[in-house]
């Protein structure tokens, strides 16, 4: 996985926090399964991030994600490949 770009990460984690109704950015090591939201909010999060960054994830990639940081890395990897 490529190194994350700090500024992009700030925006991304801030946006994830906003979508999830959190007061601030979500920590990168936070487990996605432990986020205090229901399944519908997670679907909204995934779709909105893909729209925002113009990327597409596959089912297997999604299943492999454990933390918010994993999600950020996947977005950066995919956005970099698609650029």
């Amino acid at each position: 996985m490529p190194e994350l770009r700090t500024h992009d990460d700030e925006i991304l984690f801030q946006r994830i926090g906003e979508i999830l109704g959190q007061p601030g950015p979500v920590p990168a090591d936070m487990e996605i399964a432990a986020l205090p939201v229901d399944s519908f909010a997670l679907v909204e999060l995934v779709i909105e991030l893909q729209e925002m960054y113009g990327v597409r994830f596959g089912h297997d990639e999604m299943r492999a994600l454990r933390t918010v940081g994993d999600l950020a890395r996947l977005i950066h990897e995919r956005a970099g490949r698609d650029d």
Partner: protein
Amino acid sequence: MTTARPAPTSLAPATSSAGDSQRWLLSFYRISELSGALFFGRLARAQRPGPVHSDLTRHFADEAQHARYWTDCLEELGEKPQPLGAAYQDQYLAATGLPANLMEVLAITSVFEQRVMRQYARHLTVPDQHPLVTQTLRKIMEDERWHVKWVRDELIAMEPEYGRDHIAATLRRMTEADEAVYAATLAEHSDRVNFLFDEGSRRA
């Protein structure tokens, strides 16, 4: 990655009256339509403007209207909506896993909408049914036909991006999940409708 809420509390139809079963069913439909509205509303909010965004918004508005129809129907029948723990959409997301992209969301929606159509069509054939329930079912089924069509058309339009075989495989995966959810958590719906059939036949 999904969070599942507890399944609806089960009441044994054998000890229920027809009124109890009807109230449970209409409340079940109501909460399902409400959950659908919230789901499609969130998706519409997350989407960029375009044809899919417009259809999602219309779908969201329809589902909200359907929830209103069921609320009105219950009220006109002199009933209050029964609190239920979860809608079947919650069970779907738990069974299928979090959708990875919009195509997967639409594949779940396609399978789910067809399930709803079959459930409503079956309910429509209950003998000696209150005309208000029949009227509400018919009104909603008109919209549901459009829901099934737009989602099917959109999945066809996505074939160049995702691949026809991949979409077909996703639909098969969602159909298997639908059958598992129906067998495990939605059997009560079937029991309730069967109970109404038995009661209606006795009265006829």
